[in-house]
């Protein structure tokens, strides 16, 4: 029943997507509003049908309908309800179903929000989005159908992969990442619509601004939470391994970041029109490429939980996207002329240009490093991989350059910044940064890169604080408001600017966290007898005992450890190994004790079977929490930047926003 209904609704949605794309194009070509409306009706219908399909799938999972192959593979009678519900995105078929649904939702929102504002573009936007939907619907109707049935019906299912039912973050990480990936379809669709109609001015840029920030923020959440999942579940003590799937999520984030900055230049100075369209095309293609890498199993990865046959289809789809999009771009190149020129090398434009170059260089290096084994095998016939050393050697210097630009970019004037204004803006942050770097040196930070990373992050933080403080002071002087009111009004009058600055502050926090936790990491692995301790930095870790018990869906062996800081007890920690019935090997469960200062991280790597000794891996990593916190600060900044204005675009507001954009006013 579920299977039949589910397959039927997906087939119907697929047919309607093709129909909707067709009538939207026909309607706008023949100038027949009725057809365009019918195309928008298709968007509503697809949303309804895919919602129905998702609900059916959830009903199958929660009702443990093992006649569905997907349910039999990803749920079992013992699996807790929470992990049964989120098993929707535990494997390929369900993930693509979720993808389809998110795309349907966002298409619907686009039509509802922007349908009236962009009447010329929206039919094309609808058509492009429906074509993308059709591709993913094709995947779930035929090669990766979540509603495939199996006979005989098994009595119990296999349950989700233990790594995916070990941590509640699995509820956020994949959907966040998917929402980020899917979200970029909308700026892309507007870019293509702008190319087709030749309306390549600032109209489409203004419309996609919010969508881009939302998608970017979702990607950020997906990436940071994914790092945290890796850190707390995989038990290797790190959060980022330059693994192909991680890289795949970073690529659209990098090009998307470049896009968010370069569209500001087009808005302000009417330059870089073709560059912006190209960036949005690349970003969208990279989101599809990311899904391809995750789902095709072409490169082995810790995050790739499915091999499947959909890989070639994805490659064809990426090829089509690139061919049509760039073909269109070349065809429209006459309409993509810049209407002004760069005035000075010392200006915000050129800082943004440099930022774009560095971000793309970063992305290129990541892409090259990820695909290097494939490329070298294809070109030279030898399998060569480049691991972490490559990514660090290339991306750390580029990243430091980016942080520098991040600190100075928002404070340099558009067009031309005079030496005098530069001196006024940067003299104080510069002195404070030098002081801070000195303190870092005094505290034992050595090496050029770590010192630069701390100093530049500090520089960023100081300039951001200076902007907020200076702006609030001026406002207070002029209006007589209190400090807090002045600060909040200042922020709400220039949401984009101040939201962006908060994002920069978040990035600085993340960079400090990454640097400190990598450079000052302590690690030790030893076998302890009961009552013995190991010494790591300020901590002693004592092995107390080993215990074991049966839970409904797994068997657990747990070590108990007491952690002391110079004879003062700070924590009891219990890393474990869990044995799942369907698995040949145990799944480790790490125990992490986090403070703002540092994390203690224990892994039970092995134990004597009589329970007398345990081998434990202990790590102390400083400031890891800053990474997670910085990630949320970035999301907060994005939220501020997209928060809708209550009084919609009043003239006074625009003036104030423009004033807020003038740097060095203090």
């Amino acid at each position: 029943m579920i299977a039949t209904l589910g397959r039927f609704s997906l087939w119907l949605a697929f047919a309607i997507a093709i129909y909707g794309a067709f009538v939207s194009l026909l309607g706008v070509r023949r100038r027949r509003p009725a057809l365009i409306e019918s195309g928008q009706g298709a968007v509503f219908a697809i949303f309804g049908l895919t919602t129905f399909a998702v609900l059916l799938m959830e009903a199958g999972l929660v009702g443990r309908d093992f006649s569905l192959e997907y349910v039999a593979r990803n749920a079992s009678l013992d699996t807790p309800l929470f992990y049964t519900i989120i098993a929707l995105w535990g494997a390929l078929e369900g993930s693509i179903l979720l993808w389809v649904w998110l795309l349907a939702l966002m298409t619907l929102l686009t039509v509802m929000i922007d349908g009236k504002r962009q009447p010329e573009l929206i039919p094309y936007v609808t058509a492009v989005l429906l074509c993308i939907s059709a591709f993913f619907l094709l995947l779930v109707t035929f090669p990766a159908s979540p509603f495939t049935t199996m006979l005989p019906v098994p009595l119990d299912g296999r349950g989700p992969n233990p790594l995916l039912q070990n941590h509640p973050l699995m509820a956020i990480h994949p959907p966040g990442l998917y929402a980020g990936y899917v979200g970029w379809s909308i700026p892309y669709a507007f870019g293509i619509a702008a190319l087709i109609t030749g309306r390549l001015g600032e109209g489409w840029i203004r419309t996609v601004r919010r969508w881009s920030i939302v998608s970017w923020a979702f990607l950020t959440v997906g990436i940071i939470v994914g790092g945290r999942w890796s850190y707390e579940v995989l038990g290797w003590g790190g959060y980022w391994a330059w693994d192909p799937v991680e890289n795949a999520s970073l690529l659209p984030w990098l090009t998307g970041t470049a896009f968010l900055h370069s569209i500001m230049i087009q808005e302000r100075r009417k330059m870089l029109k073709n560059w912006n369209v190209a960036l949005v095309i690349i970003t969208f293609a990279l989101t599809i490429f990311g899904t391809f890498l995750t789902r095709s199993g072409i490169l082995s990865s810790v995050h790739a939980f499915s091999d499947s046959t959909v890989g070639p289809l994805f490659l064809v789809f990426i090829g089509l996207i690139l061919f049509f999009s760039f073909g269109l771009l070349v065809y429209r190149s006459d309409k993509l002329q810049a209407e002004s020129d760069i005035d000075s090398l010392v200006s915000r434009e050129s800082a943004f240009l440099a930022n774009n170059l560095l971000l793309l260089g970063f992305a290129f290096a990541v892409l090259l490093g990820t695909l290097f084994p494939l490329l070298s095998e294809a070109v030279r016939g030898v399998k060569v991989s480049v691991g972490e050393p490559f990514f660090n050697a290339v991306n750390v210097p580029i990243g430091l350059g980016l942080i520098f630009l991040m600190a100075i970019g928002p404070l340099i004037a558009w067009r031309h910044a005079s030496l005098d204004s530069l001196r006024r803006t940067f003299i104080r942050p510069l002195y404070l940064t030098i002081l801070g770097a000195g303190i870092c040196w005094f505290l034992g930070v050595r090496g050029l890169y770590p010192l630069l990373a701390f100093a530049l992050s500090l520089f960023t933080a100081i300039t951001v604080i200076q902007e907020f403080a200076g702006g609030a002071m001026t406002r207070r002087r002029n209006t007589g408001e209190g400090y807090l009111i002045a600060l909040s009004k200042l922020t709400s009058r220039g949401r984009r600017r101040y939201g962006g600055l908060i994002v920069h502050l978040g990035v600085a926090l993340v960079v400090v966290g990454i640097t400190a936790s990598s450079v000052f990491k302590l690690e030790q692995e030893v076998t302890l007898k009961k009552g013995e301790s190991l010494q790591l930095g300020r901590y002693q870790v004592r092995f107390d005992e080993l215990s074991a018990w049966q839970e409904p869906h797994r068997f657990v062996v747990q070590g108990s450890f007491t952690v002391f800081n110079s004879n003062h007890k700070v924590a009891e920690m219990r890393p474990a190994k869990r044995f799942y019935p369907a698995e040949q090997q145990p799944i480790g469960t790490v125990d992490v004790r986090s403070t703002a200062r540092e994390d203690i991280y224990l892994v039970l790597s092995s134990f004597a079977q009589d329970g007398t000794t345990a081998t434990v891996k202990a790590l102390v990593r400083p400031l890891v929490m800053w990474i997670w916190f910085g990630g949320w600060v970035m999301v907060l900044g994005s939220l501020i930047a997209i928060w809708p204005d209550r009084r919609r675009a009043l003239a006074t507001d625009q003036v104030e926003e423009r004033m807020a954009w003038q740097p060095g006013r203090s």
Partner: protein
Amino acid sequence: MTKKTKLLLGAVVIASTIGYLIVGGIKEAAVYYITPTELKAKGPATTDRAFRLGGMVVSGSRRWDPQTLKLAFSLSDDKEQVAVEYVGSPPDLFKEGAGAIVEGKYMNGLFRADTILAKHSEEYRPPEEGQATAKDHYRTLVKPPAARP
């Protein structure tokens, strides 16, 4: 020099710096995949480079000392065997008779591995008939406590 030339010059400088970093990075970090047979064929010419060696863990070759954490085993590709040494706990996925990839250097007939790359199998095959699962194996040996902590 016009502004455009200056701008272009700046872009070229940035791009070539990135290019230089990439080329240098690849030279520095490239690690070749190699089989035991290929490694033996290269002989002493391989000492100063890191390799990724892939093969099957030979049954009966795995020895691990919990005190020193020294793990010794042999990797084979049916023709040749290479003795591997590693310091640390064997990863959960590491098993005799299963595939493993190690990264490290080969010196005097011994491959010193810094990393064992254990790929998680995506197949969740239920245990075959009569085959004791890992769970059963440990359950007999660790006595459950009276009450759960």
